[in-house]
């Protein structure tokens, strides 16, 4: 049993996890009319957060919650449960029951928390009911499908692997769409964007406020602590992400990343159009996340139409300026003298969603896409150079990789910046933060900063920072546990043992199928498996910001 990985799940319940629970909680409540079992969730949660050792004692006694849950699940939907079970079986042996238990336990625990938050904020129960009945319909459809498969299996006995895979893909796709719906439904229960942050870091906010948890509305978040938290959360995200893949590939919409969003381009576009002076369009997530079929081989930018790609390629140099590309005229948007079009993000509660009180529309579809991916989607692309930065938009990754390692602007809090003015903006915002002097300057070779050396130092600074913060944040995290988890590679490995054949069904995920599925996962793999222990710590302790 690996205590490290087990306990690591406890101190930092992250948003994706929570979302997942929304879904579970919801269905339990809606379909089986089950009241949330408070006794089930309260105590273990609090205890587990207080100490890792206690956790050890608690975990076995919590086994009933797991069975409990399964019971609910069975009541609720047999097929789904079956599917779930199948998946679990597909996991390679490294995944012990204990871990599973703890995870489920956590989910159970958080039910209560979610329940609380839903009570606080207003929501429209009628709309919710509509959504739920729609979901019910869908689930029933899926159920029938699975029944069919089960029936066929019984008839045909052993079938070809391909067919099984196909079936799985089909089911997964359906499930995904259900989950997406669920999440958006759950999203309506979330507080509005104002509260996003507090809900985004539930661990921090609920388990005793950590000093310095600020609400960096500017997007250039940074204080030592918030940043650190985020880093921790991110680490969690990853393991969670893997968990979810195993479970069925839930698309996470994590609001945690909202405040860190890189969509400055969108922020800059804040125009003061009077409401009604423009037409609001809202694309569905599926549409937003629809894969591009044409990709630039140079920069990776995706296009729906080859013509646009060809147009784009011209920008890369003369060799791409073929007569064909030039001959086809680009569609002029100005030729349509219609009402100005502005876009709304389908994510309810988002400031870019039309129902938000301070709604700020997005200008173009591209903005919508980038915004949605950056803000509400998992960051699946990890920089292969630093193994730290993660992106949901591949172009961001490419941009980052260009500069990765050149982030020489370092703050005393360990945050690095690619631009000097960003660093200075950060420093002028926060008390006590100081620009860190590049260490190679002491050796008299200022200016030419060796990348490796630099990043090593950056890492040191981060580690230091992390230590400080870890001792600070005792209320909400047990530093010992965190460290143990950070340094035990098995916590990363165990959930990663999934069958790649599963992945083909995940095409609708916020991950453009820009490459072979396994190579797109190579980001993930490289981002987790290849961590030497110390890098894992670095990874946890902070995150980079631009």
């Amino acid at each position: 049993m690996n205590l490290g990985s087990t306990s690591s799940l406890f101190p930092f319940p992250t948003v994706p996890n929570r979302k997942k629970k929304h879904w579970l909680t919801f269905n339990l409540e809606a379909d089986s009319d089950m009241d949330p079992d408070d006794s089930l969730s309260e105590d273990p949660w609090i205890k587990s957060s207080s100490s890792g050792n206690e956790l050890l004692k608690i975990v076995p006694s919590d086994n009933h919650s797991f069975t409990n849950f399964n019971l609910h699940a069975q009541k609720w939907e047999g097929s789904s449960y079956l599917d779930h079970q199948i998946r679990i079986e597909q996991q390679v042996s490294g995944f012990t029951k204990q871990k599973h238990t703890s995870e489920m336990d956590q989910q159970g625990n958080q039910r209560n928390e979610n329940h609380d938050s839903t009570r606080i904020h207003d929501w429209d129960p009628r709309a919710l009911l509509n959504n739920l009945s729609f979901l019910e319909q869908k689930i029933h459809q899926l159920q029938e499908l699975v029944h069919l498969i089960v029936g066929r299996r019984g008839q045909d006995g052993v079938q070809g692997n391909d067919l099984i895979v196909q079936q799985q893909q089909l089911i997964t796709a359906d499930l995904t769409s259900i989950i997406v719906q669920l999440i958006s439904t759950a999203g309506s229960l979330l507080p509005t964007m104002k509260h996003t942050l507090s809900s985004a870091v539930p661990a921090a906010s609920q388990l005793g406020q950590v000093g310095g948890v600020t609400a960096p509305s500017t997007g250039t978040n940074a204080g030592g602590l918030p940043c650190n938290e985020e880093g921790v959360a991110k680490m969690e995200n990853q393991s969670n992400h893997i968990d979810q893949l195993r479970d069925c590939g839930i698309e996470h919409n994590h609001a945690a990343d909202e405040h860190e969003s890189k969509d400055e381009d969108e922020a800059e576009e804040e125009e003061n159009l009077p409401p009604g002076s423009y037409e609001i369009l809202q694309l569905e997530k599926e549409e937003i996340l629809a894969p591009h079929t044409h990709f630039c081989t140079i920069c990776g930018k995706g296009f729906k139409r080859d013509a646009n790609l060809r147009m784009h390629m011209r920008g890369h140099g003369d060799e791409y300026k073929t007569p064909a590309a030039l001959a086809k005229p680009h569609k002029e948007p100005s030729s349509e003298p219609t009402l100005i079009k502005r876009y709304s993000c389908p994510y309810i509660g988002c400031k870019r969603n039309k129902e938000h009180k301070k709604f700020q529309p997005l200008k173009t579809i591209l903005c919508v896409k980038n915004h949605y991916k950056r803000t509400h989607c998992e960051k699946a692309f990890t920089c292969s150079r630093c193994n730290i930065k993660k992106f949901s938009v591949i172009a961001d990754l490419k941009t980052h990789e260009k500069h990765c390692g050149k982030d020489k602007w370092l703050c005393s809090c360990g945050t690095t910046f690619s631009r000097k003015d960003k660093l200075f903006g950060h420093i002028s915002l926060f008390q006590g933060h100081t620009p860190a002097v590049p260490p190679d300057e002491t050796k008299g070779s200022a200016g030419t900063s060796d990348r490796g050396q630099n990043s090593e130092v950056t890492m040191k600074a981060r580690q230091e920072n992390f230590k400080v913060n870890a001792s600070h944040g005792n209320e909400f995290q047990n530093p010992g546990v965190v460290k143990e988890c950070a340094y035990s590679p098995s916590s990363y490995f165990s959930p990663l043992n999934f069958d790649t054949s599963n992945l083909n069904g995940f095409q609708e995920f916020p991950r453009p199928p820009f490459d072979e599925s396994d190579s797109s996962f190579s980001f993930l793999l490289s981002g987790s498996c290849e961590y030497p222990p110390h890098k894992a710590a670095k990874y946890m302790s902070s995150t980079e910001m631009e």
Partner: protein
Amino acid sequence: MGTMKKQKPISESYFNPFDLLSEEIVFSILDCLSDNPLDKKAFSLVCKTFYAIESHHRKSLKPLRSEHLTKILSRFPQVTHLDLSLCPRITDGSLTVIASFCKEMLRSINLSRSRFFTHVGLSNLVMNCGNLVEIDLSNATELKDVGAAALAEAKNLERLWLVRCKSITDIGLGCIAVGCRKLRLLSLRWCLGVGDLGVGLIAVKCKEIRTLDLSYLPITNECLSSISKLQYLEDLVLEGCYGIDDDSLASLEQGCRSLKTLDMSSCQNVSHVGLSCLTSCSGCLRQLILAYGSPVTPAVADSLQKLSRLQSVKLDGCQVTCSGLKAIGNWCVSLKELSLSKCLGVTDEGLCSLVTKHKDLRKLDITCCRKITHVSISHITNSCASLTSLRMESCTLVPREAFVLIGQRCQYLEELDVTDNEIDDEGLKTISKCASLSSLKLGICLNITDQGLTHIGMCCSNLKELDLYRSAGISDLGILAIARGCTGLEMINIAYCNHITDGSFISISKCSKLNTLESRGCPLITSLGLAAVAVGCKQLTTLDIKKCHNIDDAGMIPLAHFSPNLKQINLSYTSVTDVGLLSLSSISGLQNMTILHLKGLSPGGLGAALLACGGLTKVKLQTSFKSLLPQPLLQHLEARGCVFQWREKPFQAEVDPICWKYQLDNLE
């Protein structure tokens, strides 16, 4: 106290009347001695008690060598101010010594002019001396951001000079901004590595700033808007900031209500549009310096009209129009100080209309206003009777009669610069009525003679500074009158007054406060005269005897013996040889030597002298010696803190001052 005889050991039984004086009383007596460092030295040499009292009294030190820091710092435990600008080499070791001896006592340290310490020593100093409020790090050109970061630990720092710290960037300055929150004065002049971001952060973090010197920084509007939010800023220097333009000043409009002095010299992108913004914001602006800026037109003058408290305006080097000057004349305020030095376009008409309105003028600088005539002088002297300073070098059209008016009407003059003018003995005679005259510059005045100078000598007893450069009409008689009348003389320049002989030097030797003596190109002066000066003028620090061919080693020996305070000497073209130079090298404080065209100098002698002279910081030598001196010797000297300047000037024969003036006039 002047004589320093060795005291006999005081016997126990002997009654010492000084025992009756409490230490406090002696302290307050010592407080009155603060003028001259030599007096204190003499006091401490009287007896052991005095020595001890003086050791505990002394608050500030200006040592010449860093080697003895340990000794002197243990001798003077109460030192709060340490000026190390005279030490040729301050290393991390020196700073460590200071840190361990001074600790919390030290409040102020001057480290300008030493390049040999690093962030390590600085960090040591700052960590141990927590009460430091003042640090001068000017010219620490090698100091990098790490050093600045070390400096940032001086949390109580209020005044910081970083002039010419070129290696410091925004990062280092950012550290200082975050660390030294109490800063009131910051000079970043010539810190070329610093830009908007660093300065902006200073303005954000150091809210107490009163004085900010940003001269020659590559800054733009960006940081100026945050500077304008500094609540207490009084003195802002933006000299040579080419990135500053009218828009920048518009951003100043929002704030800077406390601004009293603004220097925007050489800001060529600032026009009257920007200046007009100043009127709305800086109500209490007292001084405005717009030297070498945009032309002074009526628009500029009008834009500044509303600055109701303005007292001083400097427009040096600006193109000035007649109407512009007239518009300045129409201001409702009455200026106290106006500088039109080197302004092109200053005419009688403009200047007259200006000075007739500003009757309160105390200081007027019309250097090189070559178009003005006696009309201007007449108006100036007529309306500005309270002038204390008039500088009018090279007003060539002003006739000799006009200078009579100056003496007649401006009797409060303390400073008068009539270099390169037509002034004659009559003029000098009336000017001698200015009894408080302390600085008189009569360089290149070929019309004056001993007669006029005698009047000055007889009446201007407060004269401290006299410049007679190339005023060839002067001879020993005039100097004698000066030396007799002006005993407080501190500086005299008799360069190229080729009639001057040893007699002048002998009479000058009576001026015991003399610290600067320039007598270039006085071929009649011999070692005898120099010896007299050496004996008489104990405070001599700067001596220029270039081209005094008759001065030889015989002059150097008394100099070495009697002038321990000598810091700077120019021996070029004299007859000094190895022997003289070697004897000179015994002056431990000697820092600056110019030794060109010494015929009797051998590489060996020069090397020995340089080696012996431990305090040297700058030596000007002929290039030929570079190869003749052993390389390790030069390296050693450089490591000791000495900078060599190699010159390859051909031997120049001297011309007569009148010929020289003739040549000068033909240049124009």
